[in-house]
């Protein structure tokens, strides 16, 4: 299964600023997924990122708030824009699908907005 390097692992940011999270995969993948895990909650899908096309956002998430780039088949970024304390969460990227290895997740970015 793929290996994902996600960074930063954690950050503390001021409200009103933006943070860009990077995910690097050790193999080429068609789709990459971005999830949010709020404190004490499970994972919620933010968007699906395909190389060469606009990301597809889930209900409740918009491109202006969470712009995503997917410049090639091994890399993606998620930006959390104009942050507020409600954006404090763990953000995770994921690749994969069906089959023996399932979906693989990065180690996550723990974001605290103050």
């Amino acid at each position, binding site marked *: 299964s793929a290996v994902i390097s996600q960074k930063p692992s954690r950050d503390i940011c001021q409200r009103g600023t933006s943070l860009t999270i990077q995910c690097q995969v050790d193999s080429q993948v068609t789709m990459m997924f971005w999830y949010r895990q709020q404190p004490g909650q499970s*994972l919620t*899908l933010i968007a699906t990122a395909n190389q060469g096309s606009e990301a597809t956002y889930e209900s409740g998430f918009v491109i202006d708030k969470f712009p995503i780039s997917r410049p090639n088949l091994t890399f993606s970024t998620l930006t959390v824009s104009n942050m507020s304390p409600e954006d404090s969460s763990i953000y995770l990227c994921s690749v994969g699908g*069906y089959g023996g290895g399932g*979906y693989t*997740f990065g*180690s*996550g970015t723990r974001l605290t907005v103050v």
Partner: protein
Amino acid sequence: EDQVTQSPEALRLQEGESSSLNCSYTVSGLRGLFWYRQDPGKGPEFLFTLYSAGEEKEKERLKATLTKKESFLHITAPKPEDSATYLCAVPTQAGTALIFGKGTTLSVSS
């Protein structure tokens, strides 16, 4: 709307005390059910995928089973290192990403 519900939310066991975690799902056509383990401060780690009712998979002290309405994760003679949050998930209707339950946080004490 596809939905995944896990119970209990938290489970405390003594070392060696076997138990089961439940994952019930409501989906329009099951395309697989996934179990993950998540340790604090880490991303979920893949455990099993089950595709059809009656299917079972095992890994060390864990066994996952699937019926038409729910899945169970059986933990036999757990050890403290089995302490973690266990998540189950099903694919979205688009069949790409995953919908997760809220998880069961397991604590095993020696």
